[in-house]
């Protein structure tokens, strides 16, 4: 029987910047249609791992494959089938929402773009301000525009970097709901970096914990809670980041 190709497959990834090892030999594969969280403290290697998956950084050794294409060498074979969203990357502020979606829709080769923009504007409640400059919108509205850009090509793989950072709880909940609905409708594979543990607990079927460039743990949120004997994922995160997990396991 032929095994299906995982949408994201990282094998023995090492990334060294001059003398600093940012990622130190990590391997994982992500199942189609799943939502996986990549967690870790500052400097754990999350950003470098995600950037390598996006093809922005070339590995020192090891391989990263997205939808079967080796990154960054073969990235142009698959970039139109993936997308990303991050609050740290802006949409051009002087362009209206419609102009931004038109430009990115053309870049991603979207067919019947006006119709697609109409549909996505309705799905993400952008219609009311679609002809306003993006820079004049509130933080929550801008996040919805970025989300619309990330879904414009109906991606099979979606990378999200702290998708609800700086949003009020109501808007953040709305964004999570839309992402979950989108995943269930389209079977999109989502890889998420977040510092919001409640978000991860709610949305993700799997959590990969990074520490000093290595995978410290990798399991479902429920099994991690059970293994660390904790009530919340935040406590598990603190155990791992502060090294209490190792102490606990040694004691057991």
């Amino acid at each position, binding site marked *: 029987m032929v095994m299906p190709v995982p949408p994201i497959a990282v094998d023995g990834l090492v990334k060294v910047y001059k003398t600093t090892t940012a990622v130190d030999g990590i391997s994982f594969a992500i199942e189609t249609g799943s939502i996986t969280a990549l967690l870790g403290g500052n400097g754990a290697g999350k950003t*470098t791992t995600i950037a390598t998956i996006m093809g922005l950084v070339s590995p020192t050794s090891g391989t990263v494959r997205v939808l079967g294409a080796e990154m960054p060498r073969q990235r142009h074979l698959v*970039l139109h089938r993936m997308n990303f969203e991050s609050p740290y*990357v802006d949409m051009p502020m002087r362009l209206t929402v419609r102009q931004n979606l038109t430009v990115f829709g053309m*870049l991603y*080769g979207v067919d019947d773009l006006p119709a697609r923009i109409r549909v996505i504007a309705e799905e993400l409640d952008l219609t009311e301000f679609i002809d306003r400059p993006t820079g004049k919108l509130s933080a929550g509205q801008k996040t919805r525009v970025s989300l619309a850009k990330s879904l414009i090509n109906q991606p099979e793989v979606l990378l999200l970097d702290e998708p609800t950072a700086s949003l009020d709880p109501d808007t953040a909940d709305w964004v999570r709901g839309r992402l979950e609905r989108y995943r269930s409708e389209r079977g999109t594979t989502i890889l998420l970096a977040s510092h919001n543990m409640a978000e991860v607990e709610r949305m993700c079927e799997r959590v990969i914990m990074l520490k000093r460039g290595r995978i410290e743990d990798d399991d479902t949120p429920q099994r991690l809670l059970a293994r660390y004997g904790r009530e919340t994922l935040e406590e598990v995160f603190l155990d791992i980041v502060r090294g209490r997990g190792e102490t606990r396991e040694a004691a057991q």
Partner: protein
Amino acid sequence: MSAHATFSLRRVAAMVLRYWYLLRSSWPRILDLIYWPAVQMLMWGFLQLYVAQNSGFFAQAAGVFIGAVLLWDILFRGQLGFSISFLEEMYARNMGNLMMSPLRPSEFVAALMVMSIVRLAIGMIPVSLLAIAFFGFNVWAMGLALAVFFMNLILTSWAIGIFVAGLLLRNGLGAESLAWTFMFLFLPLTCVYYPVAVLPSWLQPVAWALPPTYVFEGMRALLIDHVFRGDLMLQAFALNAVFFGAAVLSFFMLLNSARRHGSLLQTGE
């Protein structure tokens, strides 16, 4: 057309549209395209009038300064138009969106070239009309020679623009000042306002290694001696081919270096 086509005109058009939307939304950006070329042309035009009144040679070589400043602006503004469009993406923190999109570097560069011509047209056409109105100097009367001068100058400006874009990708906005000042090195060396013979003999080979030198010499031959020097233009094209090839090669080397060093993640200072 396949979504991962090697070169997609639709993606080039998307980027041109992006810059067009930006220009359209900001009247100071449009004014800036016309303001400085107009000031320069007026200043050199009046200087030319003054010198011509006091020198028989310059009275016969009418328009040589205005012609020089207009051609210099094609070179300088062509590169600036290319580089500013590129910098707009860094100022807007939009580079991540573009680098993650199917846009290929060659398509990005093609869009920047188109925009450099659009920006030049917005700035230079009104200024050339002002030159006719104020000084009776019609740069369009150069005809085919002007087209050849333009092609050579714009090729050099793109080569410099591509090289500077590579430096910006590799070094972030720390290299921004190069985008504004790099071309000024060409101002004394390419002999915009004087013949190459004026330079000391040891510096003349350096001047002849730069394609715009041939254009400015060619312009003086046309305006003073009324001769079109095709030989100079062919040499300029040959040198431009070398410059352009070297710029594209260095751009891709700098882009690959940026991927290795993680510079694409941080395009700030």
